[in-house]
């Protein structure tokens, strides 16, 4: 579904992604874990089409078609979704107006009919329940005065409304308490589908315990240095990333503690 090959990207003159490759099959959940400044958020923004990042080389394809020349909105219309680490607050635009405009922009771009106001409200209320989001927030200006948890629930609510093919969750767990984490994870699990895949970016094991990723990648210094199964989450939680950084520095093959080289 999503294929990333040898992606190199800079912010200004500073290289952040240094040849990153990744394959994500339909219906799977992948996780990327890594130390601060490894390039996790850069990867999500480059995939979503943020213009501040300078892509030097490499390719990203969705269902075999390169998305590199597409604008952020065209990528979203093709079914790529990013849940923001820091959702933006916009005074003067209600959550309902924003989400409905987004849903209809995606529908129109795909030749579908717009969702009418009544259907929208009904669907929105139902899906807000999935993520435990207060329906009063629909009429409030987008993310203005929302708590950290409400903002993240709002991200997953939008994911549920937009029904993307591929969703990146960029540190969706940050700022969530345990109960909220569980509700948000339940919301994501409801969205799992054989045709939809997820890339979950996080520092912590807890969200991944709920989401049970099929594949776990370790991202260090702009590259995927190791890929394993769900068990890798616990290794990383226990040992951190220092071993990987050390092995790379010494020019050794990357191999987590306790794993066969």
């Amino acid at each position, binding site marked *: 579904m999503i294929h990333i090959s040898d992606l190199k990207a800079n912010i200004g003159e500073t290289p952040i992604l240094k040849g990153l490759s990744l394959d994500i099959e339909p219906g799977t959940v992948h996780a990327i874990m890594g130390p601060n400044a490894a390039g996790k958020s850069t990867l999500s923004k480059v995939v979503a*089409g*943020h213009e501040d990042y300078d892509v030097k080389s490499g390719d990203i394809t969705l269902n075999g078609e390169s998305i590199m020349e597409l604008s952020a909105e065209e990528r*979203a219309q093709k079914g790529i979704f990013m849940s923001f680490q820091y959702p*933006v607050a*916009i*005074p*003067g635009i209600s959550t309902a*107006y924003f989400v409905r405009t987004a849903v209809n*922009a*995606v529908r129109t771009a795909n030749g579908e009919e717009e969702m009418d106001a009544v259907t929208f409200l009904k669907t929105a209320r139902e899906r807000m329940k999935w993520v435990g989001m207060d329906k009063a927030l629909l009429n409030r200006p987008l993310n203005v005065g929302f708590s950290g948890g409400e903002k993240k629930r709002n991200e997953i609510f939008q994911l549920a409304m937009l029904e993307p093919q591929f969703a990146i969750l960029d540190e969706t767990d940050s700022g969530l308490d345990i109960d909220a984490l569980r509700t948000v994870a339940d919301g994501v699990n409801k969205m799992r589908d054989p045709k939809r895949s997820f890339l979950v970016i996080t520092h912590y094991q807890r969200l991944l315990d709920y989401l049970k990723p099929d594949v776990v990648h370790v991202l260090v210094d702009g590259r995927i240095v190791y890929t394993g199964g769900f068990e890798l989450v616990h290794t990383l939680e226990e040992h951190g990333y220092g071993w990987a950084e050390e092995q790379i520095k010494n020019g050794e093959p990357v191999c987590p503690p306790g794993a066969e080289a």
Partner: protein
Amino acid sequence: MSDWRATFVANQETFVGGAHALAWREDALAAFEDAGMPRPKAHAWKHTPLKALKTAFNAAPVAYSGTTPRIEGAVNIVLVGGVVDPSQSDALPEGVTVTSLQANLSMGAPALPTDAPATLNAPFDTLNKAFVNGGTVVTVAKNSTIEAPIVLVHVGGATGHAVHVQNHIRLERSAKATIVELWAMDGLANALTTTDTADNAELHHIVLQNNGPEALFLADHRHVLGRNARVFGTSVALGSLLARVGVHTRLNGEGAECDLSGVYLGHGSQHHDHTLRMEHKAPNCTSNQRFRGILGGKSRGVFSSLLVVTETGVKADGTQDNRNVLLSETARANSEPMLEIYTDDVKAAHGSAIGKLDDEALFYMRARGIDASTARRMLTGGIAREIIADIADEAIRTHAETLVEAWLLESVA
């Protein structure tokens, strides 16, 4: 003989009030001539070019054949070239009287409220007095709450011609009303509005300025508030090539409150100027100002506001907040909140900003599939809606939103 005098002499036969009124008109014209046009560096006009007003505007009345805008759900009083047209106007609810100013002019110069503050648009106030040919006197009886908004719809005028009007609004004790000025004129509209809000009364004064693209608009607003009186003023400025709104407010009674807000949207070569003076003269008064500029093309926005707390204005609480978004490299904004305080024990806060649309907000919207120009329109519309949301009356708010939406579609790509 000045150009203005020439058109005065040529048209004085047509002036309302006839010969009785000529003496005070003459005096006003002489005062205008004495003052002369403001020098380019004059403080009150330093950001606002007056080139377009250098030559006199014809005072002869012009015929009107346009379509008059109306606001559904409101009481519309239509003034054509400043003159009330009863045939286009709605019936008034009980408790309000609207009389044509013309009826008063033969009895003397229009009376301003006692304690009304001075003009901020000098010397054009004298020009207004010399040529005044219409307007209204609106009175809301004491203890009356008028639910339906009263809209003074100003239409008519023509390029090269001037209309000078005065609207004098008085709310008697404990009255409550919404009075709207809807402007859809051409040529020069030179307008004085006084409001006199008596003790305990509450006035909502909304100005929707949607004049023609070549129009010039000089609005001279003067508010005076009694004890515990409340005035909520909102200015939505869309039209005119040059629009100056000078708002001088005097908080004259203890415990008075005045909230002024506004949004000005500029494109092409438009110039929007809001010049304010908020005077805390009585103790325990509150004032808030919240203005937003959305400026594209080569347009320019000016917010120049002086908050004055006099020696008697103790325990004043005042805020001034102005933010501007520039949509193009060539748009400009001046933002000048100023304070002048002559007593202790005052709370005053001000904020001012000039910037461009938030790139992160744009990216957020685009990442949800909303195309860039729709996103820009939504963001700028959001800024305008923050102000329009202050309009309490739904019919007026909806009308303001419709005007802004149309502007955005035309102006934000």
